[in-house]
């Protein structure tokens, strides 16, 4: 029976790979279980080059201003997340993860070699940080 999943390769943007120093942001917190669920969800809908693909979504800062800037990502795409993870492309690729420019900028997918690497991915994302641009009442100065 043929694989009816969609090919993720066709959703990869043709653009220069982000620099190793480029900042990667993801709304959190994440634990192993939901991250595995998210990775499995991607694999249910997509394959990569005809094979299983386990990955999670992130946003990569590509500009100092505009929609791909850190401030814009934190205040729009991730405004519902009071806490975020912040790492770099180089940190992820050094640990063996692939960072693919998928769908619409500044969205990227971090692809794991196997689903077993979820715990390494959690460690690579580092500690939770407050999102200064999250929505909700702001405290009086």
């Amino acid at each position, binding site marked *: 029976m043929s694989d009816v999943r969609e090919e993720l390769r066709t959703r990869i943007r043709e653009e220069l790979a982000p620099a190793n120093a480029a900042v990667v942001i993801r709304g959190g*917190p994440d634990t192993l279980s939901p991250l595995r*669920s998210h990775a499995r969800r991607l694999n249910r*809908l997509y394959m990569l080059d005809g094979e299983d693909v386990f990955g999670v979504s992130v946003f990569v800062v590509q500009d100092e201003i505009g929609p791909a800037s850190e401030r814009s990502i934190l205040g729009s795409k991730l405004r519902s*997340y009071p806490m975020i993870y912040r790492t770099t492309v180089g940190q992820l690729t050094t640990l063996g993860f692939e960072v693919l420019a998928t769908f619409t900028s500044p969205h990227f997918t971090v692809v794991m070699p196997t689903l077993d690497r979820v715990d390494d991915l959690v460690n690579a994302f580092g500690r939770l940080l407050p999102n200064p641009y999250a929505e909700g009442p702001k405290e009086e100065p």
Partner: protein
Amino acid sequence: MTRVDIPADLNSEDESGFVWTFLDEAHDPSVIRPGEVVVAGSPLTPAVCEVVDIVDKPTGTIVHLRVLPGTIEQYRRLLTRLGA
């Protein structure tokens, strides 16, 4: 923790630019209809979302979600003020 109507990774967008997830993961799929306002995400990271559309695919039915402004707590306070 908040119980969500439909689990989703609110970081996850597809070519539509909206958050996507599978309908069959919903607590009660019958409430997931275009235009409906639902709670999506995870119990740790819930958000109020609008169901944009529902798309049948060979691997399952996809739900597109638009994350609406405001926190769950803000919606709770609003409903309290309204006496709902």
